[in-house]
């Protein structure tokens, strides 16, 4: 008996180390999804409402990290391991090409008629499209917006700018301690979005139809504009700013123009602003799109329940709930057609022409190449032309790699 017990010992250790298997029940159908942190309980309210209407389905949402990169890692980990931990993806726009190319997402194009798809903002829809197929139901309209100090522009007697050259002209007239133009110049995805806007604003392009436009004169003009801005119309520290650093500078009354996302509009509306502070919203010449939405994983065990959730989350009631409870910027056109809120109309006008970033499976690498070179030029390590030539070279190599 003693021998036998000793023989069993390693198996006991194995048992202790084995993960506890989740109990599975046939009813109700379960939809598992990894969400952003839900501090205000917005998503919980939405899921509760969904449960009320669909008692046979339960959404099991896990609150993940706030960083979209970190959540993407968690999904990629689970999917590569072949696990069926999730049914839905609450996906950022730049995940879609990678996930679709990997065969992880259900092609939704033919599940709904074209008219239903047409009810979404074109920008938001394009952000979930890969090779002309739709993989994601947009729930959020999100794009670069130009905020400005309406009171100060009125005092200067000028209209909001329509080009970057006009913006620079006005920004030069800002008086210290007010900075002219703040944006996101830190080396991260936000820099790609900012640079892409200026690039397109000068008529250039990054990657289109297999062509790389980074070593063309338009690109050089765009990067030179940003390089000149650092230390003149923009504070030197702009090369270290992400969204929040630039927002706080603007919100504290120390910037004339701010390039940021629509979330700032809600925060400014709630914030106590310095006296006389009036916020203006105007379209950027070529805003970059970046919004979230829901996609269904091909490995999901309850695709039908998932589809019912997508129906629900794109209904005007759900959109309204998300907006009222959490200020989630709706992606449905009808919301903006029916609103009397001038702020919402201005936001929509600023975002409706937003263009997505290149829909490439290797997008992350292309973006890292661009960020590194643009950041090097902004911080004076390289001349703009040299940085762009290097970026173009590396990007071409990337696209040529089999």
């Amino acid at each position, binding site marked *: 008996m003693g021998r036998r017990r000793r023989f069993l010992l390693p198996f006991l250790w194995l048992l202790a180390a084995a993960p506890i298997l989740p109990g599975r029940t046939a009813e109700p159908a379960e939809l598992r999804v990894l969400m952003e942190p839900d501090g205000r309980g917005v998503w919980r309210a939405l899921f509760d409402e969904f449960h009320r209407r669909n008692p046979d389905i339960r959404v099991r949402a896990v609150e993940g990290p706030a960083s979209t990169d970190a959540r993407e890692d968690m999904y*990629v980990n689970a999917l590569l391991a072949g696990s069926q931990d999730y049914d839905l993806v609450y996906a950022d726009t730049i995940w879609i090409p*990678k996930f679709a190319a990997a065969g992880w997402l259900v092609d939704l194009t033919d599940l709904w008629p074209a008219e239903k798809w047409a009810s979404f903002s074109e920008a938001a829809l394009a952000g979930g499209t890969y090779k002309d197929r739709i993989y994601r139901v947009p729930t959020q309209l999100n794009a670069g917006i130009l905020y400005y100090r309406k009171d100060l522009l009125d005092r200067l007697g000028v209209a909001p700018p329509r080009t970057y050259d006009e913006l620079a002209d006005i920004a030069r007239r800002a008086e210290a301690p007010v900075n002219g133009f703040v944006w996101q110049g830190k080396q991260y995805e936000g820099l790609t979005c900012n640079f892409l806007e200026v690039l397109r604003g000068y008529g250039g392009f990054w990657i289109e139809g297999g062509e790389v436009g980074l070593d063309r004169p338009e690109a050089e003009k765009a990067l030179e504009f940003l390089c000149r801005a650092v230390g003149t119309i923009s*504070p030197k*520290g702009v*090369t270290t700013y992400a969204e929040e650093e630039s927002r706080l*500078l603007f919100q504290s009354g120390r910037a004339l123009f701010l390039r940021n996302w629509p979330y700032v509009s809600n925060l400014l509306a709630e914030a106590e602003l310095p006296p006389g502070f009036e916020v203006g919203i105007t379209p950027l010449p070529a805003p970059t799109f970046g919004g979230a939405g829901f996609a269904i994983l091909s490995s999901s065990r309850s695709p039908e329940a998932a589809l019912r959730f997508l129906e629900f989350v794109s209904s005007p009631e759900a959109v309204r709930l998300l907006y009222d409870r959490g200020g989630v910027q709706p992606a449905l056109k009808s919301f903006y057609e029916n609103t009397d809120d001038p702020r919402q109309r201005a936001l929509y006008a600023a975002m409706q022409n937003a263009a997505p970033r290149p829909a490439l499976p290797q997008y992350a690498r292309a973006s890292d190449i661009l960020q*590194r070179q643009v950041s090097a030029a902004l911080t004076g*390590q390289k001349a703009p032309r040299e940085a762009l030539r290097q970026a173009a070279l590396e990007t071409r190599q990337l696209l040529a790699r089999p």
Partner: protein
Amino acid sequence: MKSSRAAWWFLAPLLCLVAVFAIYPLVRMLVLSFTTQNLETQFAPVFAGAANYQRAWHDSHFWETVLRTLVFTVTAVGLELLLGLAAALALHHSFVGRGLARTAALVPWVLPSSALALGWIWIFNDQFGVLNDLLQRGGLLSSPVAWLGHPGSAFAAVILADVWKTTPFLTLLLLAGLQTIPTELYAASALDGASRWQQFRHITLPLLRPVIFVAVLFRTLQSFGIFDLVYVMTGGGPGGATETVALYTYRNFMRYLDFGYGAALLVISSGILALLTAALWLLVGRGRSLS
């Protein structure tokens, strides 16, 4: 004979852990590094011979990150050792409030790096940052500096953040080491007329050597793999000036989904780490020890 068999049984759980969490991943990495496994192959491993190593050899960006990480490791660990030793010596003497000081010294080590990194971002901010404010008030700066916006100062800032966070770890280990040195040695040498410096040079330092070796080794391994501080503080910027090996390898794995290549980079970095460990052993670890 029987007792040694029993010993193996007691060791078994630990060996299982080592096999599962250290040996298996390493072997798996090695196998993976000879394959192409990425989006193009739909994540099926395709044998690629040494292609990934050839690519790594010509990847100047990778070697830049290796060099940068080595500079970072040597500088940060060197500073941590000096400061940690000084702090340990100070905390070894009894004074009022020593318990409190010892506890307080550990706080940075206990806090999560990514949270600290967010704090450092604001400390180094050009408009709101406390560092610029202090330097300007002290008359050392005429206008604010964007510390994380220049390659040199951003690199120094990351080193400073790392030193601040991990010096307590060295302090703790060295303090424990100091307490194992018998006080009689000091009393006896004092009778022979040894000065404080001589005591430090000929008693403290030699007897502390094994502890220093372990502490420095531990920190070197950790420091070479630095990720979280850099990831949050600078994202590798500006212009890639603070990108470390771990950050670049992570990007190849998780962001580019290029597993074969990522694995090759990992195998190469492991080799470099092994060399680094050997060098440390020759420099510090060999020679006299407590036994």
